[in-house]
């Protein structure tokens, strides 16, 4: 009974600290919404409306058909036409256009003769991601143009080999659908690790930890009491990000909500423990916040698979990514949200996060002596 009383007293005190400091609530609840709006609307990895400059030296029906093929969809947008190939380069340099299509004289003639007709595409490699995507678009346009010609010339024609691709789970390959669950990882690490690291370090710094240690409150009681409010706050954030994602960006929830919260809870616990370890080791708010930022934000951004595929990383980083819980959280979350995975698929993610939690718990209780140094 008195154990429970002590934990509750600490948790309640922590809630008062949170409520008295508006910055915490703004940070904890405002930032997730701001991030999701930013990533959902402004930051898009979908490359569309690539500004295109055209040099049509052939002036034929065929060349105009090719230009039309490029601009028919929203992929490319015609921003300029020029007569000389040399005059498009400044457009690329000044970023007016990011791609230039140059159709040389004789394009229509070659097409009709059945010879290989060439058109040149200049791409702005300074933005390699957009360039790679534009190249993909251009290739598929060229391929469909060729097929069209082949059908005209041969009456009917089928490709000897054709891959029919159907993209499952996110048919339109919208990045927001993938990003929103990824954002959850950033929001949770920021608040869970940063705030716990700060709250415990603050008690050391102000000397209140000494007063706390002079009471019969035990280590586990301090840990439970201090972390419980932040655990609840984390779950509120999950709900907030998820709701915003579903309402604004049509993020599907194909799997079970309970499983989703189980994954989030386990990840939160792992992160709260990491924050605790940081604060009991540093015992200083300044250092704690820096360590927290470096040890969480970077892995969450870079090593979670949120933006960059882990499989393409050097082995050392891959290894690190497999130790930290961020990757498992993003994996599990995307699995449940997009693929509708059940426990039978996501359990390894849960185990991995659970292991990290246990290790951090052991380290923090070892370092967290109820004595002053």
């Amino acid at each position, binding site marked *: 009974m008195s154990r429970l009383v002590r934990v509750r007293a600490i948790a309640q005190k922590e809630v008062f600290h949170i409520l008295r400091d508006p910055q915490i609530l703004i940070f904890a609840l405002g930032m997730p919404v701001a991030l999701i709006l930013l990533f959902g609307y402004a930051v898009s990895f979908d490359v569309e409306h690539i500004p295109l400059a055209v040099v049509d030296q052939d002036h034929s029906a065929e060349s105009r058909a090719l230009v039309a093929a490029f601009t028919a969809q929203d992929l490319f947008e015609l921003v300029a036409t020029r007569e000389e190939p040399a005059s498009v380069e400044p457009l690329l340099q000044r970023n007016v256009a990011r791609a230039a299509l140059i159709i040389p004289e004789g394009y229509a003639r070659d097409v009709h003769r059945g010879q290989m007709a060439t058109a040149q595409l200049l791409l702005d490699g300074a933005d390699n991601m957009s360039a790679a995507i534009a190249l993909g678009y251009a290739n598929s346009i060229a391929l469909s143009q060729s097929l069209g010609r082949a059908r005209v010339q041969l009456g009917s024609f089928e490709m000897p080999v054709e891959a029919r691709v159907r993209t499952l789970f996110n048919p339109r390959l919208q990045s927001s659908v993938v990003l929103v669950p990824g954002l959850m990882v950033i929001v949770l690490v920021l608040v869970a690790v940063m705030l716990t690291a700060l709250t415990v370090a603050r008690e050391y710094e102000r000397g209140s930890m000494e007063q706390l240690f002079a009471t*019969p409150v035990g280590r586990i009681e301090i840990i439970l009491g201090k972390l419980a409010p932040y655990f609840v706050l984390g779950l509120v954030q999950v709900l907030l990000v998820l709701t915003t994602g579903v309402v604004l960006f049509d993020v599907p929830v194909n799997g079970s909500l309970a499983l989703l919260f189980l994954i989030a809870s386990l990840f939160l616990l792992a992160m709260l423990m990491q924050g605790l370890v940081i604060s009991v080791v540093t015992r200083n708010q300044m250092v704690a916040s820096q360590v927290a930022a470096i040890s969480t934000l970077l892995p969450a951004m870079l090593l979670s698979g949120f933006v960059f595929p882990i499989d393409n990383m050097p082995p050392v980083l891959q290894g690190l990514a497999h130790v930290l819980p961020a990757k498992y959280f993003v994996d599990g979350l995307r699995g449940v949200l997009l693929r509708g995975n059940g426990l039978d698929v996501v359990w390894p993610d849960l185990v991995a996060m659970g292991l990290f939690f246990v290790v951090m718990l052991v380290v923090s209780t070892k370092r967290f002596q109820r004595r002053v140094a």
Partner: protein
Amino acid sequence: MADDTRGGDAIVEVDALTKRFGAFTAVDRVSFAVGRGEIFGYLGANGAGKTTTIRMLCGLLAPTEGKALVAGHDVGTHPRRVKRAIGYMSQRFSLYLDLTVEENLAFFSGAYGMYGARRATRIAWALEHAGLADRRGELTRSLPGGIRQRLALASSLLHEPALVFLDEPTAGVDPASRRDFWRLIRQLVRGGTTVFVTTHHLDEAEYCDRVGLMVDGRLVALDTPQGLKATHVPGQVWAVEGATRDQVATALAPAREAKQVHAIQVFGREVHVRVTGPLADRDAFSGALRAAGLGALRLEESQATLEDVFLELVGRGRNGQEEAA
């Protein structure tokens, strides 16, 4: 060191308690006992080892060597039992400033595992005791220092400990609030609580039943304030007004030769001279000054203070005897 404790059985028994941090010995084989119901003052300069001693006695710091029983529990092996039995008011911090008065009390009573009617009764007692019944909803930050200290004391007493450790409770508090605070301490002791208090205000030490003096980690003296003065600064103190220190020193040169003058100190416009032997007599003393041509002086009887004791002992501890007169 004399282990005579007042009022019967001891509530704190310390035997050769030692704390070393690496090569530095913060507390060096300290032994003493504190009797139940006593106000025990622990005196010393900053860094003398007061806080380290108190932290060991509160179970916050494991002793390197030696033993201490606090309320019957060994601080080295059963720190948690010690913590349950005592109250502690730390030097740096005692309250959460972003919590209200009542929230602080609710927290500390909860931290001591109190609940229900007892908790409510004790919080009400603490509000009353600290004189904060009508300010319970105010943020602690907004309270003046003196009232904060009273609240901190009350919150360390919520669980009705038989013994309370106060580490520099009046540091940074104005004189009037200090006097009020000490009134509370005496009230507490009348109720049977033992108070172990560290301070560097020497006037406060006069309120203690017994005073231990720490110098560089060692307990160099332990006695009642009167006993300390009688032992370490014996003799009569004369306050002389109307002459400079040098004039007085020259006038008393023969007595100084005879080791009858122990200290000559300037206090404002007065020169205080502590003497033993024939010069303790008023007429003999004024005669000695007049003989040296120092007439028309105001001469008054003064008192040795604990400050004199402190200077005497600290001077001896650091530099041997040469600082004395």
